[in-house]
């Protein structure tokens, strides 16, 4: 079983490819967390039982494979057929019989299971002709959706560990470092620090014992690329870490996985066990004489543990309090020993960089941001999901050409990037190329790649408050500016949202923001003001409306917003009546419905379901004025 040489790996790869090719047809059922939530497990089971029912020889004729995240989560459960390349979307278990009968046996395409282009209405059968997929360049996510992540041979068939073979048998550790430097890869966790520079600084630190760590804490709400990589192609992470360990002379590694990702923990565990079995982890890896092994450590539910020094403290069994920043963890990190910590996506790219060369990677992207980047495109966009694109792609292209534009064709307002440390990018900057420096200059950040699209029904004051409240809960509490500052920021924002804002509040916010940026111990506190500052920069008028007019222009803040049904537009469909959680709407079917302001809690549920746009929002203060009159 152990792979003792490069040749042995090549033989296994050929065998696995042969085995895949020998199957007349394959059905790939997406079992990433998203599709699992849509019920894809039942779909996979339905295929298996349908095949058994028809006594088809699964291994030869029709093989069912469960894979990681295909990325097009909006359309799950996703089923891809090979070799035809047909993609079926929103597949329910009760359609499986039909798929087997009509498509797999009969060769016919089922039109209403195909992806439908939102504007033209065209149905597209081929996976790689769908704009969502056509425009992607997958490097870190190269194998996700193609392989069964719990089967190492499947990963090997698609190229896993060939980068490692090259590194161990053809290159010296320093040559590996040089190659990573040529690639220009920068950390994909958010900070964008040059990978090679980090590795070199660890390598030059004195001592015999050092560590390589993988940051799987993906705490940015809205980002799930690391989850998909850990679940869907764990071997890409393992391979990258072994290569990095070889370059650095480290023999121990950890993958820190956040508590909220149980499937990632399971799939990584299976992958590590298999890698050990095949001699790709442990002693004498691939017969090279190099020893290295990996352990998994689960987080305990703390966003701050995505910060490198806090993560290391957590690995040491302590509370996740970050350490002073002048101590470089590349010199004194985990257990005060030299440590390299890189993000999941960073590690996942290393195998491909070594296999295909640093220059290949550097040929993609922009001057300062090389290669490709994974993004989770979510929010008020039609095609939500996970994508990977060359750096330099514009936000407009991502949101409109790949994302299909805004949900329900409402007006675009902003796209939030970089998580709670990032900022909002407004319409006038949509042609910004995605690049570390470009995003920072615009007042946002690359972050881990979360892109949250917002429409006109989003209040930017509320968005800033959301991030502040999130961070307030996640602050470790060690330093005064962050612990007290976040709490007080939320207090101020709560006043604005309740209509109790006063003149001087914006200045109060700005002064507090400045002190937090300068005085906080770690990046959580230092970057907490970013959503505040970016929303003030581009949407100051909304703040002023809240403070001066006691109005929420987006119609979101409940205490400032009232709802009413427009007589001419209402067709009495009764949907709002059913949606209202507090029975504040009265009306008989086919007749005009009425919202009662004294009972209405302004939750917007009726607005969201009304099919004729018959409900409008208006400032609650007008109600009070009406009462007075």
């Amino acid at each position: 079983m152990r792979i003792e040489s490069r040749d042995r790996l090549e033989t296994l790869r050929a065998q696995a490819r042969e085995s895949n090719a020998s199957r007349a047809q394959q059905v790939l059922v997406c079992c990433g967390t998203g599709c699992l939530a849509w019920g894809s497990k039942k779909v996979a089971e339905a295929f298996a039982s349908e095949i058994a029912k028809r006594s088809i020889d699964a291994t030869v004729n029709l093989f069912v494979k469960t894979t990681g995240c295909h990325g097009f989560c909006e359309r799950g459960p996703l089923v891809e057929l090979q070799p035809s390349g047909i993609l079926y979307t929103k597949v329910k278990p009760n359609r499986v019989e039909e798929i087997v009968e009509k498509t797999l046996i009969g060769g016919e395409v089922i039109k209403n299971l195909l992806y439908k282009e939102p504007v033209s209405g065209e149905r597209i059968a081929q996976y790689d002709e769908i704009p969502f997929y056509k425009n992607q360049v997958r490097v870190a996510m190269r194998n996700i959706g193609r392989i069964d992540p719990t089967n190492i041979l499947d990963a090997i068939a698609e190229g896993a560990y060939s980068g490692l073979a090259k590194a161990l048998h053809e290159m010296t550790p320093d040559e590996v470092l040089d190659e990573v430097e040529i690639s220009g890869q920068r950390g994909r966790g958010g900070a964008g620090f040059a990978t090679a520079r980090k590795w070199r600084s660890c390598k030059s630190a004195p001592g015999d014992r050092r560590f390589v760590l993988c940051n799987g804490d993906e705490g940015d709400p809205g980002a799930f690329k690391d989850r998909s990589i850990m679940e869907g192609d764990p071997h890409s992470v393992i391979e990258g870490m072994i290569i990095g360990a070889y370059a650095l002379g480290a023999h121990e590694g950890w993958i820190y996985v956040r508590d909220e990702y149980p499937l990632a923990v399971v799939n990584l565990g299976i992958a590590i066990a298999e890698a050990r079995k095949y001699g790709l982890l442990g002693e004498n890896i691939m017969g090279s004489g190099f020893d290295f092994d990996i352990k998994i450590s689960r987080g305990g539910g703390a966003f701050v543990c995505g910060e490198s020094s806090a993560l290391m403290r957590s690995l040491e069994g302590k509370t996740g309090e970050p350490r002073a920043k002048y101590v470089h963890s590349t010199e004194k990190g985990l257990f005060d020993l030299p440590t390299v910590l890189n993000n999941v996506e960073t590690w996942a790219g290393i195998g491909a960089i070594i296999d295909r060369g640093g220059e290949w990677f550097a040929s993609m992207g922009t001057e300062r941001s090389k290669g490709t980047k994974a993004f989770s495109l979510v929010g008020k966009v039609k095609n939500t999901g996970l994508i990977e694109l060359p750096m330099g792609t514009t936000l407009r292209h991502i949101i409109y050409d790949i994302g299909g534009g805004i949900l329900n064709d409402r007006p675009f307002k902003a796209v939030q990037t970089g998580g709670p440390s990032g900022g909002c990018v407004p319409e006038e900057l949509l042609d910004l190329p995605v690049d570390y420096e470009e995003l920072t200059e615009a007042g946002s950040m690359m972050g881990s790649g979360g892109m949250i699209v917002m429409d006109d029904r989003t209040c930017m004051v509320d968005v800033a408050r959301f991030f502040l409240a999130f961070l307030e809960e996640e602050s470790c509490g060690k330093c005064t500016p962050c612990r007290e500052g976040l709490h007080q920021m939320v207090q101020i924002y709560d006043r604005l949202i309740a209509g109790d804002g006063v003149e001087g509040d914006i200045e109060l916010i700005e002064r507090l923001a400045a002190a937090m940026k300068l005085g906080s111990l770690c990046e959580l506190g230092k970057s907490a003001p970013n959503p505040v500052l970016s929303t003030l920069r581009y949407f100051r008028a909304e703040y002023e409306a809240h403070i001066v007019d006691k109005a929420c222009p987006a119609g979101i803040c409940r205490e400032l917003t009232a709802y009413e049904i427009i007589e001419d537009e209402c067709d009495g469909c009764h949907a709002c009546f059913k949606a209202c959680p507090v029975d504040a709407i009265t009306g008989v079917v086919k007749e005009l419905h009425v919202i009662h302001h004294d009972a209405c809690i302004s939750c917007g549920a009726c607005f969201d379901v009304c099919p004729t746009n018959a409900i409008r929002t208006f400032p609650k203060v007008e109600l009070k004025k009406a009462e007075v009159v």
Partner: protein
Amino acid sequence: MAEIECSDLGMTEEILAGYPAGEPALIQILQDVHHAYNYLPCDVLERVAEALDVPLAKVFSVSTFYKAFSLEPQGDTIVKVCTGTACHIRGAGQLVEELERQLGIGPGETTEDRSFTIKTVNCVGACAMAPVVIVGDKYWGSAKPTRVKKYLAKGADDEN
């Protein structure tokens, strides 16, 4: 600690046996303990402190720092509402409110009969299907307040 705890420490010994002694294993051990007992009982924590040779005060500090841990017994079914950014703008707040209405408890609380605990979670990574509710182990994507009753009733196999 209202009553004196009297947990079955047999399970604790089994868990401890699977890890090397010392502080680094603490969080992993606490996770296994939490999974076994559905919370962190104080007498178990005292035993863990003793076994790992870590001061009880440090064990207490770690137990209260991380959101995954509860020092109070939790409900048989944990209902988690994701309140990440994508879920927030797609209406997670309304889901929490509906759950509060139906169960009579707020986030972080457990029903009197210990059947349900509601928790808010900061992003479960299923952002493309926001908003997300997890009842036990079952994920419900694109969750709607009008369907909350259904999610709670069985929490099992049905499609959304």
